[in-house]
């Protein structure tokens, strides 16, 4: 059954609202089992804390609600649940910290915890900005969410096309999207799971601290891109 393939079933919610010359961007995780009345409460509190004009309340609430409904629409459906190890890429900027990373994640591991990964990441890399951790966890969750949605779609396709096929596995590995790694190849008996040294840099995280000017320049470019 569909759910976020992590220990906590939290939905990533992204907000980007522009009204009356003010723009509010945010990203956070929401627990879909919270009652929907909480959405409006949250919107009101956010607007009050950030002193935004009150038009934002309805817009924020609406946006959250839409994303939640979308999540719930997937909920009843089946998800393809065989093991699937996908590469996750991080490429994000949080205030002055720029992060690029690349690693593997097992979609079928329902005890995986993006928040714990983010915590370890920040501790190991000595990141002091407390907003980086949640942003990293959010980015991971978002990607997992997308992949989960894709797997619902592919599960549907497979059901339809199952009638003549031999093994679902075989079909899956060809249909699972270019994302999934071919487990057979990687974990073969005579190959090693230790990567060759020359490949280490590919999977190594890069953390950069930017200066103010660089941040401003990047922000300007992002704004231009999103318009």
């Amino acid at each position: 059954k569909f759910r976020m393939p992590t220990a906590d079933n939290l939905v990533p919610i992204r907000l980007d609202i522009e009204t009356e010359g003010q723009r509010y961007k945010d990203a956070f995780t929401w627990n879909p089992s919270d009652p929907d009345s909480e959405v409006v409460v949250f919107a009101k509190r956010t607007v009050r804390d950030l002193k935004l004009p009150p038009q934002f309340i309805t817009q924020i609430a609406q946006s959250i609600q839409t994303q939640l409904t979308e999540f719930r629409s997937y909920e009843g459906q089946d998800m393809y649940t065989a093991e699937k190890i996908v590469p996750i890429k991080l490429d994000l900027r949080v205030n002055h910290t720029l992060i690029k990373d690349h690693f593997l994640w097992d979609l079928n591991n329902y005890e995986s915890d993006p928040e714990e990964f983010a915590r370890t990441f920040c501790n190991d890399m000595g990141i002091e900005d407390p907003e980086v951790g949640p942003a990293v966890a959010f980015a991971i969750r978002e990607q997992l969410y997308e992949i989960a949605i894709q797997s619902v779609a592919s599960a549907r396709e497979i059901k339809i096309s199952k009638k003549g096929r031999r093994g679902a596995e075989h079909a899956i590995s060809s249909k699972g999207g270019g994302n999934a790694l071919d487990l057979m190849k990687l974990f073969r008996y005579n190959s090693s799971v230790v990567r060759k040294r020359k490949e280490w840099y590919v999977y190594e995280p890069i953390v950069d601290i930017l200066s103010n000017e660089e941040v401003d320049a990047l922000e300007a470019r992002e704004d231009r891109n999103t318009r």
Partner: protein
Amino acid sequence: MEMPQYDPNTKPEFELYTIPSHSSWFRWDDIHETERTALKEFFDGSSISRTPKIYKEYRDFMINKYREEPSRRLTFTQVRKSLVGDVSLLHKVFRFLDEWGLINFGAVSRGDDSDNRDSSLGDTELKNQVKIEEGAPNGVRVVALPNSLKPISVPNSGADGSGNGKVAVAGETGVKLPPLASYSDVFGDLVKLKGFKCGSCGEQCNSGCYEYSKQGSFVICEKCFKNGNYGEDKSKDDFRFSDLGGNSLTHGATWTEAETLLLLESVMRHGDNWELVAQNVPTKSKLDCISKLIELPFGEFMMGSAHEMNSCPTGSLNSLKEGQSASSENQNDVKMEDQVHDQMNESKQNGDAATEEPPAKRKRIAPLSDGGSTLIKQVAHISTMVGPHVTAAAAEAAVAALCNESSCPREIFDGDEDYLANGLSSPTMVSDPERALQVDASKMEENQSETQDASSEKNDVPLNLRIRTATATALGAAAANAKLLADQEDREIEHLVAIIIETQMKKLHSKINYFDDLELIMEKEYNEMMQLKECLVEERIDVLERALKTGVSKWRS
């Protein structure tokens, strides 16, 4: 690698790596049961990406990687880039090795509050370290216009002394953002307004200040004005006198304990008649009294809902606490909790400790925790989590803190302790706590009889004092009961030890008996042996005689 390859030309060097003794099961060539149990995923054959061989590779790689530089702490991020596999699973292996000391055993540990590994190694103390940050979180930059990159910053705390103004966020001063609404909701009323500070001599202007009327915010105190220290370029006429004494903005600033006590008593007696109250408290004006009273926690209660107090003259703890909890629910819960939290946290914690330990006393004390605040529940939870000796230490600390805060509770406590000491020294168990409680109750009655002078419409029992008395009583009860339990434990221990000794004795006895029997048997056997020996000797002699008789020349001995 642990050992370099053996080279016949050079002596092999062995490097020693330390691992804790509880990990001595570890072998390079093998996978131990501990590993199989902790990391089942690799050993249940559920996937081709998780096999024992793969596990061994992960493990060996991580340990070797650590041993390349044993003094440096190996981080997960350093190893995961070199290993193929799900990062969550790799992290699990890493954590396993870390906990068993197979990696990072000799490394410098980081002093990191949020390090989960350290805290998972059995740290039972509360690690809820709350960091209080001032200002909006660093990253929140609310931009006024889409094209402007200037962040909106928070205004500095103004000279009107509103201490809840937050520090400005880094950035240019654009549109000013007032402090978080939630903060001012909670703490706004508690803020004391500052007195004015003299611009020229730097002291507090207590009685009166002269305000520079041309420019606005320059203030000097009376002394400086008289002395002629007007500051640069200012003349006498420019100053305007403003009397702070009667000004509702400022107070006579310092309220000593004695004054507070006087105030409370006189409010208790005179209620709303502020003239009389102000007369009784000699150094403070009417307005001062009112504002101070409002500021006191429960000050509003004293003026409001203490009717219920007076209507129950029996002075039982129940009514006191019910009244208190009822009134607390009437008022602003949030504010109450915060104020209560600040001042009474310890005492309530101990009130709760009392609720845990003596089940027989639960009825009398329970209403306190039925006050309904989640704070209590948290405190209760916390006190159940820690051992009894911790709660006892906390109780002591709370008593000390309460005593230190004001002299009044000290009297109450000391009075309590005297009674307690007497009570505890007597051997009768059950009557003790009740006696202590009764003593306290009678003390309460005394207190209340004083207040009975007031007519029924007058409110005001010193709630503060009452609460403290109540908590003192609760603490007394807790102490008494703890002593009871301790005594009981002692007796049980003695009893059990006696049983043990008895059993040992019996064991020894039976052993002795057994050995006695053995001895007897041995003796008998010995006797038999001797007899046999004699028989044999006789037979031998017989044989020799016959041999001689028959003339055998040679015989064998």
